[in-house]
């Protein structure tokens, strides 16, 4: 099994975010993703903000995960809420802004966008609405296409903690998703805005049983599948998942040379 991860912690102000991450580390999560939401539903042409640099948090001294001696790992995630495929040109090409994030996800509000996201868009996660009755059905063809592309479906559990009506919608939408995807490629994450809304990983694995997952599948939804999502996001920065580039050391360029640029040797040993 992989380590436990929570891939959806809402990006709130610094102190609150620090306390949420500290609670997550105390509960046993080894990695968390800080989620920045870009709402394209109402306003088009909105700028996607830059991700929060996690070195700023905790001044570099990250909290240790309970039960181990390693610090918690923080990754950045972008969620684009949209209802029309034309809003999502950001994801089709390698946009400058989405490149800065480790995980990119889309929250489709319409069936057309859900279908496009499963088949075409360059995302890692598709968020499933849990706060209201699903306006469209999950087509098995689209879901299977997404699974074959390595895209995962995300279910959030904090709305279920906050309100009892949302609890019903969460379970009914989750069961509808299970019928289409047969329990594959699902992750369960918190979407927490406060430390009290987080729950321990084994409890979430039990919640997965309510959603219709098997024992091992529910535990994988909080561990193995989350690891797969992060790896899928990492391959976006590579060529076919095999070659990756890293910036060259800048100090080499600052060396003083007497010869003008045109006469300097073109090939340099890297």
């Amino acid at each position, binding site marked *: *099994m*992989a*380590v*436990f991860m929570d891939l959806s912690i809402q990006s709130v102000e610094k102190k609150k975010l620090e306390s949420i991450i500290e609670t997550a580390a105390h509960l046993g999560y*080894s990695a968390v993703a800080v989620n920045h939401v870009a709402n394209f539903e109402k306003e088009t042409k909105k700028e996607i903000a830059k991700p929060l640099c996690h070195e700023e948090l905790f001044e570099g001294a990250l909290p240790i995960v309970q*039960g*181990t*001696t*390693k610090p918690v790992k923080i990754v950045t995630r972008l969620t684009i809420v949209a209802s029309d495929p034309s809003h999502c040109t950001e994801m089709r090409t390698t946009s400058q802004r989405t490149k800065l994030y480790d995980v990119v996800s889309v929250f489709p509000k319409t069936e057309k966008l859900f279908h496009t996201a499963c088949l075409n868009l360059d995302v890692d996660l598709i968020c499933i609405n849990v706060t209201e009755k699903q306006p469209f059905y999950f087509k098995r063809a689209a879901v299977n296409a997404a699974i074959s592309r390595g895209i995962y479906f995300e279910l959030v559990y904090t709305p279920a903690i906050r309100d009892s009506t949302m609890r019903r919608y969460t379970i009914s939408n989750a069961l509808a998703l299970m019928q289409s995807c047969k329990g594959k490629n699902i992750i369960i994450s918190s979407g927490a805005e406060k430390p009290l809304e987080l729950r321990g990983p*084994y409890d979430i*694995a*039990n919640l997965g*049983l*309510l959603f*219709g997952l098997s*024992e*091992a*599948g529910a*535990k*994988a939804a909080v*561990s*193995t599948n989350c690891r797969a999502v992060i790896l899928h996001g990492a391959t976006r920065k590579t060529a076919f998942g095999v070659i990756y580039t890293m910036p060259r050391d800048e100090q080499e360029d600052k060396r003083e040379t007497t010869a003008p640029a045109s006469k300097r040797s073109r090939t340099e040993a890297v």
Partner: protein
Amino acid sequence: MWETLKKCPRHLLVCEKSSFKSTNSRHSIHVQQHYFNYRVSVLIPECSALPQKLDSIVKDFGSYYLVKDVPLHKLVCEEFITTFLSKGSFYALSCSTRIDQDNAAALLPTGKLIISVDKDTYEELGLEGQSSRYSHKTPMRYVISMDLTASSFAPGGNRYKRVMWALAEKKPLKFDFLMAWNPSDDRRANLISYFSAYQLKEYQPSVAIKTLKDIECPVLQSSDLRATSAESCDAQEFFDWQGVVFNEIESENDSGNFLSTYCCPDPNIVVDQATLCTITGFILPEKIHLLLESLCHYFTEPKLTPWAVLAVHGFADSPVTWREDEHGFHKGGENLYSFVVFRNHDYWLQMAVGANDGCPP
């Protein structure tokens, strides 16, 4: 779907009965093969204080050490094998590692090193191992085991060089180890001096002795595991009752108690007092064996109580349970056994494991 929700993760309880006087009694083998023990509890009804002999054994359990940041190749190198492994039993278990998430390592007294690694570490390490028996769809955990005392592992040979290269250069693995050393002769190699380069601390197992008053004890018949007559409790009910007593849970079944509605199984008798002794730490099977023999000798003189219990819990994050059976952690990592010792030198042995475990031997 509601049928599946009623089921809880599977667990196994194996109960067997035998006698200490029987020649093919396997009690010492069972104790010896459960290498890593975290807690030992002894319950003696109708007894106000721990008997003299048991008390002296409990006070002299030997110390264990916590050594931080030990690179794994230190337990594989030639110097270690000749200093410790050939001269006694050395037990080492990685500490603060979770068996279902992180890498873990254990050195068994038979000289076998078991390393349980996750997929990424396995692919980087380059040593041959088997995929875990408790994987879901794709194997995410691998178990590498190597026999350090085998002739194929002689220092200077190809296998030894490969292992040293993998552990020292390719992917150096470091763990905090709990260690204990049981030398077979008097010339003790000193563990403290060997690991002096690392942060080492010595610990003694913590002992807690408590006298319980007015507890209900089930009536048992040593020949009858399943309680075919209504005059005694069956082994499974008794096992549950042991858990209640060792964890000091209330079993009154008060109407106002929201935590526990447990009742002692019938038939039972109320006992004035009982002694409960709990020892926690990194405990060696040799000491548990001494304790068991002493408990057996307790009944050579006539005693009021018909039985006494010795229960041993293993570590939840240990890579192995009995012998080299792989241990997994699904939602709980229990692997424990208990001996119920009867007045007539019969005993019941109950072994329990959790979801991701094989059947105990």
